[in-house]
């Protein structure tokens, strides 16, 4: 925002300032940056570089699995206590992950083995599996997965129905569809994948939530429901947990997910009678 401490607005020399910079109070777009000649002023250039650097770091920083597992060990009932199961996809490293989305959707052999050892002895189905996946922002997962699952546990705890939740899993180099294989192998009736979303320039820590009823390998995206932009500066964790609880109850009741299951927990409005409107012609 254009404020007193903004170097390009105050101290930076040899810069032509733009009086319409004030309009930043109406938009996050990088307007009124001013110019050095016709180029970006130094402070604006470096601001951009910092935002891009943070987004790049978010993509490439590896997930600290032991630390995350420790955080997730006690999220509160009905989420089972204990260390989550750490898994890995067939994408061995980040470069392979970025180039081969197909490999990020399947578990490697060791993970399949690990999962088979921890399956439910009685063969009864779980109501829900929660799968934590690094995706394109390990930072989002590292920072928000544990508090989100705690918020969800609290929301589900208030539910009339009891939720039998499978042991938590944490997946490295994973994409959304990895939840299909995990949910299937855990014999879960529904899966929710918590995944780090592709970082935007001003949102390096955004978590996405994907609900799939009846997970199995080969499910398409049309059968999923998504809640996106979950982060403190976006959709708050408690609000996201509330919406997910709504979707979960609906999915369980109707035994489906995806396009047929609409999120009516809040009317989907994009309505801006917002003042002052199009000031260029009003």
């Amino acid at each position: 925002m254009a404020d007193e401490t903004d170097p390009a607005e105050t101290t930076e020399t040899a810069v032509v300032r733009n009086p319409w910079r004030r309009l930043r109070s109406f938009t996050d777009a990088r307007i009124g940056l001013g110019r050095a000649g016709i180029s970006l002023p130094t402070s604006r250039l470096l601001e951009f570089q910092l935002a891009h650097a943070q987004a790049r770091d978010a993509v490439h920083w590896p997930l600290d699995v032991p630390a995350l597992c420790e955080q997730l060990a006690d999220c509160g009932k009905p989420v089972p206590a204990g260390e989550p199961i750490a898994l890995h996809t067939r994408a061995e490293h980040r470069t392979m992950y970025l180039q081969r989305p197909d490999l990020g959707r399947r578990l490697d052999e060791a993970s399949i083995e690990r999962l088979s050892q921890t399956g439910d002895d009685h063969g009864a189905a779980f109501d829900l599996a929660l799968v934590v996946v690094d995706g394109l922002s390990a930072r989002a997962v590292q920072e928000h997965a544990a508090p989100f699952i705690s918020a969800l546990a609290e929301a589900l705890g208030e539910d009339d129905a009891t939720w039998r939740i499978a042991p938590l899993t944490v997946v490295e180099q994973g994409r959304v569809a990895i939840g299909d294989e995990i949910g299937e192998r855990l014999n879960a009736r529904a899966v929710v994948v918590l995944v780090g979303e592709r970082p935007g320039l001003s949102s390096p820590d955004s978590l996405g939530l994907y609900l799939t009823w009846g997970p199995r390998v080969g499910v398409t995206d049309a059968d999923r429901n998504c809640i996106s932009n979950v982060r403190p500066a976006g959709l708050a964790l408690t609000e996201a947990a509330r919406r997910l609880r709504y979707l979960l109850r609906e999915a369980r009741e109707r035994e489906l997910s995806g396009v047929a299951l609409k999120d009516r927990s809040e009317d989907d409005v994009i309505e801006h009678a917002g003042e002052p409107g199009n000031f260029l012609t009003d």
Partner: protein
Amino acid sequence: MTSRYRHTLGTTTYHFDSLAEVMAKASPARSGDRLAGVIAESAEERVVAQMVLAELPLKVFLEEALVPYEDDEITRLILDEHDPAAFEPVSHLTVGDFRNWLLGDEATPDALARLRPGLTPEMVAAVSKIMRNQDLILVAKKCHVVTAFRNTIGQPGHLSTRLQPNHPTDDATGIAASILDGLLYGNGDAVIGINPATDNVTQSVKLMRMLDEVIRKYEIPTQSCVLTHVTNTLEAIESGAPVDLVFQSIGGTEATNRSFGFGLSDLAEARDAALGLKRGTVGDNVMYFETGQGSSLSADAHHGLDQQTCEARAYAVARKFEPLLVNTVVGFIGPEYLFDGKEIIRAGLEDHCCGKLLGVPMGCDVCYTNHAEADQNDMDNLLTLLGVAGCNFVMGIPGSDDIMLNYQTTSFHDALYARRALGLRPAPEFERWLDHMGVFEDVTAMRPSREVPAAFAPSLDRISTEARDG
């Protein structure tokens, strides 16, 4: 089995099963072809495939359809509308000789313009695969594709921009602020084009009216576009909305376009409807298309072809409908299709050159996402190269940051950089407007005014008061 496509190198003989395999393996390396499993297995095999390709007669692409004629309306469009008389000057050439011919002095801008109806997308895709980046630039520079609506785009020595004032909630104030910023930086002569945050008709019509009001009030010689689905735009026209340009994302196979929810007849219908509005003043090019390598594979509709060949086929769709603008959104799709700056730059130059050879008014969204191995320096390189190659237009957005689509493209400042560094100018009608409105104090030097131009000052004063008081 002996295949038609083979080449012996020392003691090794390489066989390729089909023309599609030769094309795919001759393509400069990129991640999307690896993902599709059609990429050359070694660097040597790639060059061998290029050698095989160079020996093939151009005519082979008229005899052997890469996507079956019976299955695909774009193949039918390409072959049914091929003009043998226009093709005649190069009909005896191999792909390798065609490269020489294109670079040669016989291939003047006029000769290249006459040749267009004789070329198919597969021919230009083939030759581009054996061209270096400098060849792609030099040949494209000789292809002048000029179009017009309320101004004239694509004349040699000019570079236009699409002003892209996207906002995550379509907020009118936010959009207006970005439009003001762009106009005062001399951007927006190709189009003022918004990607709406939601894909519903009511919302789109609201945005269409807003843009129309701005263009009329300030008498800006430019056009507007709301980038919504072609069927939405048709509905908007029927409800009386002020539509300048009809938008659609297009791909190079019928199945790709089906996954986008349209067919060629939908484009024809929407174009007729837009022409019927007669809103153009200096021309009647009413379509705006976007393309990009990888879309066919992404829709699982690539028929085993490489992504660059699919892309070139999309230009056959485009040219059929005489668009004002065609924009290859080169780095948006992500690193699984174009991995890094090098692949994005190569693809941008290929798309621009292939489009121009086919007579399509190519522009380029010089862009990248945060998970691609690319940065602002790569974009500077591609922008500069495309400026040299005579690209019709690029995007312009505040500070390179699209806060709705979450990717980075060229900024208002970048456009002025390219114009200054390469001596390029905006569309002539728009340049005169920049001058007489006092937006620029010196249009030849591309120097914006320090003060807010008189026509815009009252609006800005009013909103500033509200910003202070509100």
